[in-house]
């Protein structure tokens, strides 16, 4: 994991001092609401329904145990004993006091954490594959490039006041677990015909009101040109992106309105003028790779025989292993998911007690590192298979072992009306009701890989448009209704879900979801996933059943 050097530390410390001064000026009415808004958003601070909300950066989802303990401390000292993990691998606090936020940021800076550019119309936290560096389908570890991009985007003097927010995701594996096709820029490490590794660059993807799949602007970009190419795209976007209408200001609209060809001509023309600047030489790349060297794996781990025996003897453990662990490139190790989707807890939430305990578990079993995932869960990425049984037992006690990763109850869910001032409808309550209706684990496992994403408004924080089942809360004359979509995906087979029909009333959502699941079970072929079935038969059978009951 990247270790901050003196310069990195100075930067976060100076950022805290800057924000403390800005907040003092605002509280003394020496700064306008508008100005403070722009500045506080660049430090992740929103003013929400009940209180401010503070979004802390989780650079490409990587944390160490010390940082997790600090988050627990902040939750305990400045908030209501919990925090929320987001789809962008960040952490949110829902109840900080505005005047205490500079103190919170100072606490975080002491463990090299910050909230820089986690909101606002600027380049946001770069996200990546949560299995980076350990997965078996990896072309190259994307994290060194993520860190290079993190540094390049942080306080970038030219691109801090963009037309709208700007998100970059990087994947280094064959399977895209970072939703790269739904980012303003998606980067995929790929091999060319000569066997060299570079980047496939996608542009103009995004979710929200107008979901768009990113288009390939550069099938192969040499690594050395990564930053100059990003700079070319950002400059064209900064100069030509629409600023007349907030809803048309994302780069996806610029790409769409100009057409990829014209947009790409502009970028190429700009890039040719700067491509030799800012070159990433091998020394820089290798220096950064040295920050992400694999931990000291135990070569004896593979000799363990207890793991298969424990699975044979304990069905619950075997089930957890099946759903909540992933293959590891080192034999004898696995990556363990910690489900933040326990049935009675809001998706993505974690208490201070859980955070502290997970920090201890990370120290004990996974080299002190923790990762957050795009689907709002955590991972201990380097666990010896021989340790999984005892880890599982401890996670059970912490309610972090619900064996539902990738299943229907592993829902992505935004805070909705309960916390968010943008929301039109509740989502946590609906998620809870769906969870209660689906309390039979065997049934959930029988359904298998099915991703439900639910957002409480058009902004789509929970990426409902790319859920296998998407649920979107809408306001109809003061009452909450829910628009359902089927067939979305944010992975390799990227797709935007198709609308099932008219929105359903709040008290009908759970019934609609269970009906959709019944239709799937009735029509599926052997081993056919939900998504495959929807792609095969279309939405009609679902539509007929869901609306027959209303």
């Amino acid at each position, binding site marked *: 994991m990247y270790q901050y050097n003196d*310069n990195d530390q*100075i*930067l976060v410390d*100076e*950022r805290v001092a*800057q924000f403390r001064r*800005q907040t003092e000026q605002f509280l003394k009415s020496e700064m306008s609401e508008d*100005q403070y808004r*722009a*500045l506080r958003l660049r430090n992740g601070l929103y003013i929400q329904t009940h209180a401010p909300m503070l979004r802390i950066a989780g650079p490409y989802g990587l944390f160490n145990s010390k940082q997790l303990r600090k988050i627990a401390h902040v939750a305990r000292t400045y908030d209501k004993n919990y925090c929320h993990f987001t789809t962008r691998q960040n952490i949110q606090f829902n109840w900080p006091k505005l005047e205490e936020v500079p103190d919170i940021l100072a606490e975080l800076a002491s463990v090299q954490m910050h909230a820089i550019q986690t909101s606002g*119309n600027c380049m946001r936290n770069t996200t990546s594959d949560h299995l980076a560096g350990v997965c078996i389908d990896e072309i190259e570890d994307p994290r060194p490039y993520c860190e290079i991009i993190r*540094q*390049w985007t*942080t*306080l*970038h*003097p*030219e*691109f*801090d*006041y*963009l*037309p709208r927010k700007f998100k970059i995701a990087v994947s280094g594996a064959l399977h895209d677990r970072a939703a790269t096709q739904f980012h303003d820029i998606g980067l995929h490490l790929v091999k060319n015909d000569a066997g060299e590794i570079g980047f496939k660059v996608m542009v103009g993807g995004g979710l929200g009101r107008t979901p768009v799949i990113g288009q390939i602007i550069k099938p192969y970009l040499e690594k050395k040109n990564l930053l100059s190419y990003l700079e070319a795209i950002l*400059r064209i976007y*900064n*100069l030509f992106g629409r*600023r007349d209408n907030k809803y048309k200001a994302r780069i996806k609209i610029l790409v769409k309105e100009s057409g990829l060809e014209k947009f790409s001509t502009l970028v190429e023309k700009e890039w040719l*003028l700067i491509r030799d*600047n*800012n070159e990433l030489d091998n020394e820089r790349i290798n220096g950064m790779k040295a920050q992400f060297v694999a931990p000291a794996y135990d070569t004896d781990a593979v000799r363990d025989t207890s793991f298969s025996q424990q699975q044979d003897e304990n069905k619950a453990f075997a089930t957890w292993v099946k759903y909540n662990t992933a293959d590891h490139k080192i034999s004898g190790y696995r990556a363990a998911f910690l489900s933040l989707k326990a049935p009675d807890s809001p998706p993505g939430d974690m208490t201070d007690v859980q955070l502290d305990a997970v920090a201890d578990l990370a120290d004990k079993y996974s080299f002190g590192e923790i990762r957050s995932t795009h689907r709002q869960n955590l991972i201990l990425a380097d666990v010896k298979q021989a340790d999984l049984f005892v880890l599982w037992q401890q996670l059970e006690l912490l309610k972090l072992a619900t064996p539902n990763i990738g299943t229907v109850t592993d829902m992505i869910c935004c805070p909705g009306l309960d916390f968010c001032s943008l929301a039109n409808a509740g989502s946590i309550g609906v998620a809870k009701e769906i969870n209660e209706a689906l309390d039979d684990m065997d049934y959930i496992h029988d359904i298998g890989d099915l991703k439900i994403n639910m957002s409480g408004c058009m902004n789509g924080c929970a990426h409902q448009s790319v859920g296998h089942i998407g649920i979107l809360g809408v306001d109809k004359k003061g009452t909450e209704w829910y628009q359902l979509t089927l067939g979305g995906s944010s992975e390799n087979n990227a797709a935007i879900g198709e609308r099932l029909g008219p929105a359903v009333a709040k008290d009908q959502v759970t019934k609609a979801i269970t009906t959709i699941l019944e239709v799937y079970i009735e029509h599926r072929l052997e081993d056919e996933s939900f998504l495959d079935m929807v792609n095969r038969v279309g939405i009609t059978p679902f539509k007929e059943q869901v609306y027959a009951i209303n």
Partner: protein
Amino acid sequence: MQLIKDRQIIDDIWNYVTDDAELAAGNISVSLARWQQDKAKLLAHDGNIGVRLGPADSVDDIAADLNSLQLIELDFPDFADGRLFSHAWLLRERYDYHGEIRATGHYMNDQVFYLSRVGVNAFSPEKAEDLPVVLSHLNDFTVKYQDSVN
């Protein structure tokens, strides 16, 4: 009126001439439209010439004239419009402009550090009492991650 140039507080020796006003003697700046329309007259004018650019103006439009211009003003209608940051970078890096680049209008004191990094070397604050504040904000950060103009 005073302003900051190259980290010093100095008297402003420039006057901006609106599009419908007569050209006065001395150091004057005009809009891009006025420059394009009255270029010959302005070049014959007694005094230095500057051009004021808004975010929607293109730097390319004055690229060929930069040797005749001693000042480029980047006029912020609103602090959130970041196009002027790219304009400054382009003037310095692409067109190698060595004259004064001045930020005017409604930018924030908290943006001057960024503006100085993309090549803005003069700041004309809306309020005179902000002069020392702008000077101090030029030092908001002592470290940086990226190359830029400086």
